[in-house]
């Protein structure tokens, strides 16, 4: 679908690499640092236990508080993004995160860790989440929105693969204080300037068009119009009366349930099946590798096919992975889950963010996707505890895994039931609005009538 075009044919000449990809690269680095430093928490747990003479349970309070604060922060930072623009939010968030990360290196007890990691870092890292970065991407890209989101999300995986080992080796060579100081310093010295220099909230800030379309062939007399989807809203609250936001949020809630529970209970399940921790770790590594490739493939496909079909398929495939944990013997199930589950692990993020933007436009995307993210985190927190409780009661994960598969079936059906061709701006537009009187800056576009599509 074309995003912005003149009434007559306009030139589509490309001028090198579209600037939006540099924005993606800068956001990729910010995500890389934010996710890497959050995941790195696990590297230091045992050191803190020894240094401060506290239990794992006590250290875990900081992690659990951080999880919930990060979830609750998402609608707030999303709203800030909608109101003040993504650039300000990501720059300030990374700056706060960096200073607080340096601050952790001076912490001498668990209370300081809870305050800085549990509250400040976790809240600030919400500002470098898909609820904010996704909004910036959605404003820069429309035709390749799915792929652009997928590249950005993959940055999180790469961050985990590079920053976590980096922190670990700094811990071995120096100390945990040095590790936190270095990550905070790198974010402050490199991440913040990179965002300031490169990132702009939308292409219009640089006099560019969405997707890099060239308007040089447009004459003054030609009218440029922006497309408006049938469900684009002026106020985010208006979207709550429509079905797609609930369909997407319910499915994303299930995403949180099923990924968080597996993240925490995968090793414990493996041990209960007499599988070694090493094999479980290797299987999880395979899952992560397939996941990084899978999210890029899904991103590519989502720019060609209906996103709701891919989203539904992703949930159903993950459901099959859960069923494999119940019906297959443990030694086979672990690899079946790694391969099948890996294909669906992160793919929900770009699909859900892109669909939300397609249906409601980008004006309120931060707030709407922020709520979906909060549902994801809260669902995950609840599921982790319930899975643990179920294992304690029944001595097996079969019941919780079956419930997980059932919720994924529901999420798949709910996703497939979204009437994308009727509600998405990719397929259906209403009255075009002349440029300059845009209803939705950055949602861009064309057309005056419904378009087909895969």
């Amino acid at each position, binding site marked *: 679908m074309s995003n912005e075009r003149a009434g007559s044919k306009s030139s589509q000449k490309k001028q090198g690499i579209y*600037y939006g990809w540099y924005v993606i690269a800068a956001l990729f*680095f910010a995500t*890389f640092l934010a996710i890497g430093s959050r995941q790195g*928490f*696990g590297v230091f747990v045992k050191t803190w236990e020894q240094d401060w003479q506290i*239990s794992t349970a006590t250290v875990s309070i900081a*992690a659990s508080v951080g999880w919930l604060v990060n979830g609750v922060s998402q609608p707030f930072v999303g709203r800030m993004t909608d109101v003040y623009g993504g650039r300000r939010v990501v720059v300030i968030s990374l700056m706060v995160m960096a200073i607080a990360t340096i601050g952790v290196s001076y912490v001498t007890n668990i209370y300081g860790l809870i305050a800085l990691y549990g509250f400040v870092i976790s809240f600030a890292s919400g500002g470098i989440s898909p609820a904010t970065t996704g909004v910036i991407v959605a404003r820069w890209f429309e035709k390749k929105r799915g792929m652009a989101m997928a590249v950005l999300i993959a940055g999180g995986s790469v961050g985990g693969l590079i920053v976590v080992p980096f922190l670990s080796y700094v811990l071995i*060579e120096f100390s945990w204080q040095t590790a936190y100081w270095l990550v905070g310093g790198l974010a402050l010295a490199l991440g913040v*300037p990179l965002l300031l220099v490169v990132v702009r909230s939308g292409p219009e800030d640089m006099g560019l068009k969405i997707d890099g379309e060239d308007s040089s062939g447009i004459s003054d007399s030609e009218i440029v119009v922006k497309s408006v989807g049938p469900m684009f809203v002026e106020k985010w609250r208006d979207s709550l009366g429509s079905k797609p936001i609930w369909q997407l949020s319910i499915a994303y809630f299930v995403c949180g349930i099923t990924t968080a529970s597996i993240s925490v209970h*995968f090793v414990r399940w493996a041990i209960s099946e007499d599988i070694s921790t090493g094999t479980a770790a290797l299987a999880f590594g395979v899952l992560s590798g397939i996941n990084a490739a899978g999210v890029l493939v899904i991103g590519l496909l989502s720019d060609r096919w209906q996103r709701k079909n891919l989203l539904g398929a992703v949930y159903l495939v993950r459901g099959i992975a859960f069923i494999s944990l119940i019906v297959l013997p443990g030694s086979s199930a672990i690899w079946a889950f790694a391969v099948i589950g890996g294909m669906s692990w992160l793919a929900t993020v770009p699909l859900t963010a892109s669909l939300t933007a397609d249906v409601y436009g980008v004006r309120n995307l931060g707030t709407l996707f922020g709520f979906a993210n909060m549902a994801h985190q809260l669902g995950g927190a609840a599921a982790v505890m319930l899975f643990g409780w179920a294992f304690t009661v029944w001595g097996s994960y079969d019941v919780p895994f079956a419930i997980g598969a059932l919720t994924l079936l529901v999420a798949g059906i709910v996703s497939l039931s979204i009437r994308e061709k009727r509600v998405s701006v990719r397929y259906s537009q209403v009255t075009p609005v002349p440029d300059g009187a845009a209803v939705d800056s950055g949602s861009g576009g064309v057309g005056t009538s419904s378009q087909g599509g895969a």
Partner: protein
Amino acid sequence: MARLFLPLGHHSEPIDPDLWEWLSTKMNHVLGIDSGAMVLLLGAVIVLFPVVVMVLVWRRR
């Protein structure tokens, strides 16, 4: 109960310390590079990425 809150990353959650301990041991065994060299190597990757992006953006402008 304690371990319930140490998930290994879907989006941005802390890595499981037991898994990480096993992985780092394996990495040391397979790579055989001392930790100081790994700090420099990974640190260089982290520093170079934003520098390269900034250079490319400056050249484009």
